[in-house]
């Protein structure tokens, strides 16, 4: 009974209801929306955003933020494209891409824990630096044409399902298990909820911060792989604004920017909500300028409902 009640009161459930309501609205207004093709398309579109948002969830759980994700996704794509064109074998490119993601995370965590810089500022700087490097390396031009074995990660199919979707869901499952079921996962929540208490309880808080920023870096590298494969192109302007969609998805999913609160399930629902809105508005031919406005309004509403609910509980 209490379980059922806590499920009904959870942020995830409320957002899920919101997702259903918005989907129902689009289904009633567009004959295409509920088709299998379109639903799979939403899932595919959401998978790249979703991978980035999973990494963002880890960071936000520790009361941090990673503004660099969009630029890092693009930089990862350009680096892989250049390596492939230089004749580096695909397996080595995948490995180097992973190393790149780890290094980005290490750079962020080092700046935050050892130098004492604020996460917002550090990642704002890398956001600009990574985007700049992307332009420099690609000379501002799109790079095409990769081996089929590379494109598989973005464009391949397993039966009716895209490989990208499978990667996204598997990654989400792994992340959820880690956060829910391990000591490390619990320590991530602890550091976000009360860093001083965490350290005095014997948690190596700096190691936890390294871990979450590395996860975010790896998530960007993974998203870069899927995106580049899917488009068969590495564009220096790719993944613009991903950081804001990812943060919005995490917050819509019930996480708190103050840390210590949030789940992967919530983030996924948040990502799908944004995906459904983007897709539905396209189907209904909403002009692009209004799309941006409406998306912002929905984000505002979602977070407002959650805040009001929390205020009630505490007041």
């Amino acid at each position: 009974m209490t379980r059922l009640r806590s499920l009904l009161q959870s942020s995830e459930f409320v957002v899920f209801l919101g997702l259903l309501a918005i989907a129902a609205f689009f289904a009633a207004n567009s004959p295409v929306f509920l088709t299998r093709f379109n639903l799979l398309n939403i899932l595919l579109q959401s998978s790249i955003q979703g991978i980035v948002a999973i990494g963002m969830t880890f960071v936000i759980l520790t009361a941090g933020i990673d503004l660099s994700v969009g630029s890092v996704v693009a930089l990862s794509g350009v680096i892989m494209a250049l390596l492939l064109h230089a004749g580096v074998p695909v397996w080595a490119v995948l490995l180097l891409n992973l190393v790149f993601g780890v290094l980005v995370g290490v750079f962020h965590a080092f700046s935050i824990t050892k130098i004492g810089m604020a996460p917002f500022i550090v990642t704002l700087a890398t956001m600009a630096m990574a985007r700049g490097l992307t332009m420099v390396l690609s000379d501002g031009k799109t790079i095409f044409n990769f081996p089929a074995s590379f494109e598989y990660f973005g464009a391949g199919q397993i039966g009716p399902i895209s490989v990208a979707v499978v990667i996204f869901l598997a990654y989400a499952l792994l992340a959820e298990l880690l956060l829910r079921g391990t000591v490390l996962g619990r320590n991530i929540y602890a550091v976000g909820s009360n860093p001083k208490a965490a350290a005095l309880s014997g948690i190596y808080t700096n190691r936890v911060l390294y871990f979450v920023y590395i996860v975010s870096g790896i998530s960007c590298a993974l998203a870069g792989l899927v995106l580049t494969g899917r488009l068969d192109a590495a564009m220096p302007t790719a993944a613009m604004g991903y950081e804001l969609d990812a943060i919005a998805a995490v917050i819509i999913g019930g996480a708190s920017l103050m840390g210590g609160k949030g789940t992967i399930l919530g983030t996924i629902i948040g990502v799908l909500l944004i995906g459904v809105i983007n897709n539905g508005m396209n189907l209904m031919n909403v002009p692009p300028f209004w799309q941006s406005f409406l998306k912002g309004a929905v984000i505002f509403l979602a977070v407002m409902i959650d805040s009001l609910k929390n205020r009630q509980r505490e007041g």
Partner: protein
Amino acid sequence: MPLLETRELTKTFPGVLALDRVSLTVNAGEVLGLVGENGAGKSTLIKILGGVYAPTAGEIRLLGRPVRFAAPKEALDAGIAVVYQELSLIPHLSVAENVFINRLPRRGALVDWRRLHRMTRAVLEEIGLEGVDPRTRVGELPIGVRQSVEIARAISYRARVLLLDEPTSSLTEPEIENLFAVIRRLKAQGIGVIYVSHHLEEIFDITDRVHVLRDGRTVAVMPTAETDEHAIVAKMVGRDLSQVYARQTAHPGGVALETRGLSDSFLKDVSVRFRRGEVVGIYGLLGSGRTELLKAIIGARRPVRGEVRLFGRPVRFRHPREAARAGVVYSSEDRKGENLFFGVPVWKNATYQAIQVGRFVRYGVPQVSAERRAAVRYAERLNLKAPSIDADVYYLSGGNQQKVCLAKALLVEPEVILLDEPTRGIDVGAKTEIYQLMAELAAQGKAVVFVSSELPELIGNAHRVYTMARGRVTAELVGDAITEENVLKYCLEVEEAETP
């Protein structure tokens, strides 16, 4: 008509009834002593009168008229000025600027310095501080004078009621005398003073009446001349002291933990010993280094010089986890800021520290059912009053939160237990249970150390006491030598010796 009056003033915080229908009066030209143990509601009452908190129920009357304060500024404007324990002066500004901050007299767009200094001199004179130059930077003044400047600022608002919250906590004996002289002057001018203090001698020196609070309620109001220390303490504690405290005969075993010449940026050459089977008390005023000592031992303060020995072997913990692994745990006094995770259920809080040292963990995965069983076991052992182990610790009372802190430390199965103010701000019932627990743990052969600011509990529970002041251990007292006079003497002696 009383100058200031509260009627049935009540304040609740989530899960806590901090003030329960308190009615209090202060007359013009009177000094009212407000006493009570930590957590009795004194600070809450002061903050309500000062406009920091709004009362949940009840009213405040000033000269017979009901008043309501939405902010500290409104209380000040109405004539109620508060001097809090922590001084709020800005060290790099001058005395005059501090006194008239926000209200500097102007001449056009510029500050009218001449008038400012004249006004300040007048205020300083009012409280007998003619010797202080208004142009002196506050940071250059001794602490005692800074306190008086703070009072000058309060007076400059034409305060009719002055609230002093533990004004002597960082003052030396002569400074206290000066403060009393100032209070007597204000009294003569018809100002009403509420004087909060832990030090009962001061209550007898300066107050006309005493108002005793316990667990948020008024338990006695009496003319100071008609009572004595013993009667006040009995009212504050609410029962005979022999029932409250749990000190048993010591059966000290070998030395469990020892420091030799431990020093860091604050601690100076601290050597202490904690034995198995013994409850050791550490006493010191705020800023004496008691918390720093415990944190330095477990590796939460670095770098340190000197030596720590655990069961005879030199150890150097670089992180609290290493200490916990070796069987040394620390429980912070700051339950909200440094100990518990609010928004998280009781059972997870209870096992957070244990899972860091690998208890209830298999292959990096916490065994939730084992954790929950352990949490239930400790909830019963500590007589925890919570709806269930799934309840958010945020909603528990202070005493029950403290029990969760203790469970959290004990689930590590430590040999040396360092408790920082384990009874701060909790009710007497929970205190008694915690005293008994400390005695039990010692009887089981653990080394138990507790920091305390309350003399009676120190005297009632510790087999041995270290007194600290300014980062040093100033005395080690054993058995019958642990008396209120001795403990205070050793805390103050150093302060006086070091004050130029």
